[in-house]
């Protein structure tokens, strides 16, 4: 069965500092991987996704993620954090089927940005 682990429940970072969120997955085949962000009381917004090809993926809001098959990881990074990046971040792996896919989410990492 597929699974996703986000080891860090909370991360506090100063505005302007770099951010890295960890994600480890377990999946039998080539994974379809996603990062979503959720602001309080809101739905999930897609930041980026990896299906195949270049293992460094660029997303919205200045985020990027790197797929490392050997480490079963898909870590999210941002070089310089803005106060508006304070939110909860979810990593997910998809089991792709003909009749729709099933996302398995990690537990999430809550990011707090200090001024």
């Amino acid at each position: 069965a597929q699974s996703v682990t986000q080891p860090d429940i909370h991360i506090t970072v100063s505005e302007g500092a770099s951010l890295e969120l960890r994600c480890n997955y377990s999946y039998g085949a080539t994974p379809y991987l996603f990062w979503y962000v959720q602001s309080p009381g809101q739905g999930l917004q897609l930041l980026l996704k990896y299906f195949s090809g270049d293992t460094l993926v660029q997303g919205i809001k200045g985020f990027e993620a790197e797929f490392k098959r050997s480490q079963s990881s898909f870590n999210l990074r941002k070089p310089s954090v803005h106060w508006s990046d304070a939110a909860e971040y979810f990593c997910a792996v998809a089991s792709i089927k003909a009749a729709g896919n099933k996302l398995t989410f990690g537990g999430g990492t809550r990011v707090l940005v200090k001024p």
Partner: protein
Amino acid sequence: DAMVIQNPRYQVTQFGKPVTLSCSQTLNHNVMYWYQQKSSQAPKLLFHYYDKDFNNEADTPDNFQSRRPNTSFCFLDIRSPGLGDAAMYLCATSGVTGVDETQYFGPGTRLLVL
């Protein structure tokens, strides 16, 4: 802009009183999903529709039902809400394999059960 819309954004109901949450999409996606998200937890898939085919998750309580009258709309019915059903309910849509498997989420409906 193509999008996923959920109404209402906030819903208050009484213990045991049936409630319906609504989701619509302008993405023309074949697949629509319903998730339940409790406080400080990850979203949990309840069920999904592939066109008119309903796919229930094994651990989804019978209290939760869904209807999809057409491509654009999907409803979540909670027949007898309990206090434990208070949560954020998220609707998502996706295409199918080879088209766009990415799930796009609506803003959610927060349900409060009194």
